[in-house]
């Protein structure tokens, strides 16, 4: 029996190769993501472990709300002396390290990495803890000198002797590059500028009396843990975090976590799609193999093999496929990880491919995934194979599997579909976000399963309509291809299902993202009154000089600054909520249109007052005049009075919770080191805004970190940010389509083999090669378009329901991207044409005589 299985496996290796590709792809993504994240983690662990001081003291991170470029937390440099007196400390120093700077070369270009990695300015210390060493030039001495890291110098063509401008929070200063420092370990991708420790505090933090951390090395015989305890006792742990080298490395690695997680989730997303679509492909392949071998299986049964043996034979074949696929997939995964490592080094993160880490769990995961998916996918076909009667040995092969009624599918599909539709209807009618989201998830899963199950039932009606024009357009060739697609609804349905899943996902996501874009557009139209916004794409703050420059530009009338900070508020109901808050300068009403429920801008921005969303206030028992305790970074806190309540669409979700804002004077008092994140600019009366723009852009040339945007530009920026999500979905779609194409190829190839005699006859009675190819191509197109139509219909329903959920969060517009949808249908037709290439070629190359004589 095993021998027969092996023979059969080898005999069908061509057909199995396509399924194996699906297994390989999913395993490769799983293995690749594991290897890559292991490698990155290991590399950085090593980097952090080698560079962290034995014990370090840092200001306590009290607020963690995600505000980009938040204020730098400092500690007094004098803390160094207190640490130095702790017994067991061999060496100690106060570090200065900030990321809220911009470094500009003499052509007004920023030296910062384009990848979003930070630009870091720090005090220069040589020594074994340093991740870099001086490779040319000399160390910086006094103000006006700096070192630059070699990778940045290389990339941005900066040489020793070149001048640089550093825009720091306390002020802008100029330096000359006096040396180049090269990373001794992995360069994490940041741009680094090193200053003389004697001036770094003043230049970067505004005072030599400030530092960002204090590092201590332990004397011989003193453990890090013991020293940590002693240092903690000396400085007090109320205001400071004291960490050992190990803890420091850990928290530094943890800080990398989000970045690694993104890559991991993206890769696992790809693996998931590959798996999901791959399952269809494998199920379909094995179903076809079983159908094709009905006679052979019947013979085995007639010769005395029992059901279990037949089933096991098919499953063994699946396991062999899974084994081969997993092994190749593991190899492909290593290649993929290698590619990612290369890609990272293009972006400036120099991981070493030679230090690639293949953890023990990687091959385990690869084989579990690969074997698991093939086994599960082959189980149903295997059961079907076991159900073949010995009489089948005598019957005609093609009949099997076609005629069985689809009643069970109809019932299951209808029940699941009804349940899914009910869940989606519930989602559309829901009034609470959490409830709606759960119903959406349930509805999406149920309707997807229902459509997959009922797919074969939909083949007949839908393809009748889709292919209705074929006979008129393409004559008998069109008629035959339409009928061929209808011939085995089960197979057509399963083939199209793979495409359907991917397209449903894209349909839903594109409706959701188009709706988001439309909603943001409306909000921008409604709320934004300024002629221009000066800011950067990721809302990182910028130096005060930008505001001064803008204000001094000829033709500028009004400049309103906006700042962001993280805060924590203690609500009357006792809850402490961490969120972000906005500080606005005077003149807000001229640049932003706010709708007030109570009070007005003057009351909101008045000293010691703040404004918030009316809904948030109601939910937490706040009213005009209520006192609200607010904590700011760095341990500052105060009590502000609620001065105004507003109606904000996005206060519950995409904006910061609560929609808190107050005057810039209040902001500056409690966040003294804050910087502007946005400037709203209006032209002076009598100045045409379009005339102002060139002057504004010219004036801001020395500040490459900010851009001038009018309302349309700002909409584009928002669209682009939403589009990033969409691009990811498109990439997933591309993968799904690649695998789905394999499925269509698979089905067509088998159909061509099954219909060999028919094709021979058609050729004998005068069907030309080109006509034959067209016949197969049209069949392929109609299958692919069927999948696309089904998928998009499902995706549209999902998208509309998703929009209902978004509407609960203030994104009220529904937009359906018809161009995308039409493009996807056209794309599906192209996919059909591509998938038909090989099978059609094969069919047209068939020898007519051999084909007619084919059994």
């Amino acid at each position, binding site marked *: 029996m095993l021998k027969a299985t092996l023979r059969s496996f080898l005999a069908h290796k061509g057909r199995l190769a396509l399924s194996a590709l699906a297994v390989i792809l999913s395993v490769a993504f799983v293995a690749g993501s594991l290897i890559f994240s292991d490698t990155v983690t290991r590399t950085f662990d090593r980097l952090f472990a080698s560079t962290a001081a034995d014990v370090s003291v840092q200001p306590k991170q009290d607020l963690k709300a995600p505000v980009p470029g938040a204020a730098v937390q400092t500690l007094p440099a004098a803390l160094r002396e207190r640490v130095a007196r702790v017994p067991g400390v061999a060496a100690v120093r106060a570090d200065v390290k900030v990321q809220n700077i911009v470094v500009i070369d003499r052509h007004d270009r920023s030296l910062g990495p384009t990848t979003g990695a930070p630009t870091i300015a720090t005090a220069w210390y040589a020594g074994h803890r340093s991740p870099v060493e001086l490779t040319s030039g000399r160390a910086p001495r006094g103000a006006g000198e700096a070192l630059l890291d070699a990778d940045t110098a290389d990339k941005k063509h900066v040489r020793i002797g070149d001048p640089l401008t550093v825009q720091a929070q306390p002020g802008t200063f100029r330096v000359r590059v006096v040396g180049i420092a090269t990373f001794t370990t992995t360069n994490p991708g940041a741009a680094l500028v090193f200053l003389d420790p004697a001036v770094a505090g003043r230049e970067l933090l505004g005072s030599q009396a400030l530092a960002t951390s204090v590092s201590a090395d332990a004397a011989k015989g003193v453990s890090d843990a013991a020293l940590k305890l002693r240092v903690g006792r000396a400085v007090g742990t109320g205001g400071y975090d004291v960490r050992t080298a190990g803890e420091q490395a850990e928290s530094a690695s943890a800080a990398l976590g989000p970045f690694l997680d993104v890559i991991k989730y993206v890769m696992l997303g790809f693996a998931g799609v590959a798996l999901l679509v791959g399952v269809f492909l494998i199920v379909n392949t094995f179903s076809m193999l079983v159908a094709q071998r009905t006679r052979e299986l019947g013979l085995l049964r007639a010769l005395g093999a029992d059901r279990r043996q037949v089933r096991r034979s098919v499953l063994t074949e699946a396991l062999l496929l899974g084994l081969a696929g997993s092994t190749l997939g593991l190899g492909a995964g290593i290649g993929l990880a290698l590619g990612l490592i290369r890609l990272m080094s293009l972006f400036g993160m120099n991981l070493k491919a030679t230090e690639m880490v293949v953890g023990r769990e990687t091959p385990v995961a690869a084989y579990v995934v690969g074997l698991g998916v093939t086994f599960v996918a082959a189980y149903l076909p295997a059961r079907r194979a076991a159900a073949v009667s010995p009489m089948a040995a005598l019957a005609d092969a093609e009949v099997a599997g076609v005629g069985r009624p689809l009643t069970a599918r109809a019932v299951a599909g209808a029940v699941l579909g009804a349940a899914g539709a009910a869940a989606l209807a519930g989602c559309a009618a829901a009034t609470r976000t959490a409830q709606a989201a759960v119903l959406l998830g349930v509805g999406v899963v149920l309707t997807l399963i229902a459509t997959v199950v009922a797919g074969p039932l939909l083949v007949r009606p839908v393809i009748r309509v889709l292919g209705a024009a074929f006979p008129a357009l393409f*004559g*008998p*060739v069109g*008629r*035959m291809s339409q*009928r*061929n697609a*209808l*011939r085995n609804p089960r197979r057509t349905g399963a083939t199209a299902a793979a495409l359907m899943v991917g397209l449903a996902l894209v349909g839903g996501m594109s409706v959701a993202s188009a709706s988001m874009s439309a909603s943001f557009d409306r909000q921008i139209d409604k709320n934004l009154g300024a002629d221009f916004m000066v800011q950067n794409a990721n809302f990182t703050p910028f130096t005060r000089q930008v505001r001064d420059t803008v204000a001094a530009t000829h033709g500028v009338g009004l400049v309103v600054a906006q700042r962001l900070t993280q805060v924590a508020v203690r609500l009357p109901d006792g809850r402490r909520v961490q969120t972000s808050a906005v500080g606005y300068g005077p003149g807000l009403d001229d640049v932003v249109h706010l709708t007030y429920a109570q009070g007005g801008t003057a009351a909101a921005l008045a000293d010691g007052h703040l404004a918030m969303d009316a809904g948030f206030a109601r939910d937490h028992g706040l009213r005009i005049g209520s006192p609200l305790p607010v904590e700011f970074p760095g341990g500052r806190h105060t009590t502000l009075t609620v001065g105004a309540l507003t109606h904000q669409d996005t206060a519950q979700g995409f904006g910061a919770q609560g929609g808190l804002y107050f005057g810039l004077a209040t902001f500056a008092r409690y966040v003294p080191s804050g910087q502007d994140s946005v400037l709203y600019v209006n032209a002076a009366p009598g100045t045409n805004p379009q005339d102002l723009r060139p002057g504004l852009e010219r004036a801001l040339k020395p500040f490459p970190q900010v851009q001038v945007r009018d309302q349309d530009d700002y909409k584009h920026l928002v669209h682009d940010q939403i589009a990033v999500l969409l691009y990811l979905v498109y990439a997933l779609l591309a993968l799904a389509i690649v695998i789905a194409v394999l499925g269509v190829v698979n089905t067509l190839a088998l159909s061509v083999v099954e219909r060999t*005699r*028919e094709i*021979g*006859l*058609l*050729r*004998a*009675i*005068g*069907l*030309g*090669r080109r*006509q034959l190819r067209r016949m197969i191509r049209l069949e392929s197109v109609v299958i692919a378009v069927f999948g696309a139509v089904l998928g998009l219909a499902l995706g549209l329903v999902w998208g509309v329901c998703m929009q209902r959920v978004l509407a609960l969060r203030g994104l009220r517009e529904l937009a359906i991207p018809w161009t995308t949808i039409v493009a996807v249908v056209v794309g599906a037709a192209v996919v059909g044409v591509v998938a038909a290439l090989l099978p059609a070629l094969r069919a047209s190359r068939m020898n*007519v*005589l051999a084909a*007619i004589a084919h059994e």
Partner: protein
Amino acid sequence: MSTPDAVAAQHGPGRAPDGGLAARARALTKAYGSGETAVIALDAVDVDIARGRFTAVMGPSGSGKSTLMHCLAGLDTVTAGEVWLGDTEITGLRDRELTRLRRDRIGFMFQSFNLVPTLTAAENITLPMAIAGRRPDGGWLDQVIDTLGLRDRLAHRPAQLSGGQQQRVACARALLSRPELVFADEPTGNLDSRAGLEVLGFLRGAVDDLGQTVVMVTHDPGAAARADLVLFLADGRIVDEMARPTADAVLERMRVFSGGNPRC
């Protein structure tokens, strides 16, 4: 081997050939494989197919009778020699020209009917004309359908038809374009004797009443007896021919060629 005159002379009165040849082959040679392992299927065969006659080709298995038909019909390439269909030399034609030739000038019937299962009987009958993009002559279509008794079966799919009915559909398909030549490859091989007789009757009728030319490959002496002329093949050569055959005479002749076993 047989000139038109000779054929005419042999057939004598009643059915004078209406002149000329539907097809002919000269020194037709077909070898499979090459070198020492080559198998000669047809060995320099000369054959003339008279227009408006019913010719049967007989011979034991492996005698080359199917190969002869395939070469005459442009389905198979020849190793050497010439094949003419009417005034057209078909040896040396490329695939596209051969396809068009088969479509427009030749009709086929096969042992296993070979209908397209997704098309109705009517669609199968008109398929070659539809492929060519031509409309069938309405009167002729009706005449063929009525002659073959398919009027009430036109909307049926092949799976809903009996074997005899399917072969009648195949016959109608072969006749519809009024081809110069109809090739029938063992048309009765898969039919019971009654349905077989019926189909032979239709082929005979197509020649007598509709003026068609039919070449039929068979190894059933009873079927061959319905032809005007029987060609006997053995070892890739035409070894004999018999005009106005009877079943017994054909069986007798076969017994001579195949060493006592008339079936093969």
